[in-house]
């Protein structure tokens, strides 16, 4: 049993692509069969916020400035058809098909009111 949550192979393509961040000298390798977001996680990087990894929560929104990619359906709550046409995507739903140049574009997410006004974690007795 394998529900293939993250897999999406590129036929005939085994070598990883390079994903570079605009305005920074960081980059990571992305296998064509895993999403750009999961590739970043596997590279041990924290360049894009990670949420659901399923195109639902919007946390991982990026803009792809250059390069070819394959994308799966993503929540219209975070990416309109016009935005998608302009390269705004959810990193967990796109798969590199060439080297990419990207820029994080996390949306303002109205968060749980009470996450913010917590006392400093350090003060909690452990």
């Amino acid at each position, binding site marked *: 049993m394998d529900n*293939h949550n993250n897999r999406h192979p590129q036929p005939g393509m085994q070598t990883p692509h390079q994903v570079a961040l605009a305005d920074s000298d960081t980059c990571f390798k992305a296998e064509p069969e895993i999403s750009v977001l999961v590739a970043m996680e596997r590279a041990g990087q924290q360049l894009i916020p990670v949420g*659901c990894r399923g195109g*639902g929560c919007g946390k991982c929104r990026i803009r792809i400035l250059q390069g070819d990619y394959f994308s799966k359906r993503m929540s219209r709550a975070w990416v309109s058809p016009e935005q998608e046409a302009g390269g705004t995507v959810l990193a967990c739903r796109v798969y590199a098909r060439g080297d990419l140049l990207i820029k994080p574009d996390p949306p303002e*997410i109205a968060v*749980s009111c009470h996450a913010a006004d917590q006392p400093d974690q350090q003060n909690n007795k452990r």
Partner: protein
Amino acid sequence: MKKGVMRPGHIQLRVLDMEEALGHYRDLLGLIEVDRDDQGRVYLKGWTEVDKFSVVLREADQPGMDFVGYKVLNSEVLAQLEQALKDYGQDVEQIPAGELKGCGRRVRFDSPTGHMFEIYAEKEQTGKWGVEQVNPEAWPRDLTGMRATRFDHCLLYGPNIEGTAKLFQDVLGFDIAEQVIDDEGKRPALFLTVSQKAHDVAFIECPEPGKLHHASFLLETWEDVLRAADLISMTDTSLDIGPTRHGLTHGKTIYFFDPSGNRSEVFCGGDYHYPDHEPVTWTTDQLGKAIFYHDRALNDRFLTVLT
């Protein structure tokens, strides 16, 4: 006071891709696929549930929850509660019998938190799946994945949870089983029950209306929760957090995401509630421990990732 609402009966979830979603709900959680309809919706249930279905998946371009429905004792109760909802000032919509296959007429109503709820009295009873009605064996041998036994509850985020909780208490007869209180006496989290369970539905305050935090499914043992964690890794499923224990409800749990980003929980155990019990209270200065009893630290992803 009890008003004739029995239990959570069904939840309709929006998914981006039906085949991927079935890989999650049917093959990984181990729910039984029981039917499909001409809108393309797929109906599933946990094997111990006696009614025909409890989970309905609908393909859409925005994940989340369409509605959650509660089953009431009979059609007289349904008519009474329908009137009570109108008198309380809710917008009430009639959904005819058969709109969901095998389900009787439903009364749908809105809520201050922006979620749609339903009550209904009748649903085709197909019995527990895979075991006989009489002299039933312990469990069916051909279950898959996590072998989830039933849809148990959901946790919903929205504004004015006090308003929705009051509606559930005053009109539908739910009790507050557990609550979180801050130092000004405000309650950012409320866990409500209509049974002896620690929660049949839960709410967390959030400015964004109508949000789903998770849909939860019951397992039998802690060993089953660990086995679920193994399956999550084996299938490369997106993990949120766990296996761990909650302070609130004391359930043993693991959280993960469906392929459309809706959060799922499988859990076992936890507190019980009788109508004479005072609500169990956690204070916000201990919120980390209230949510994850072992970590004792707040987890931003758990609190803010919603569909």
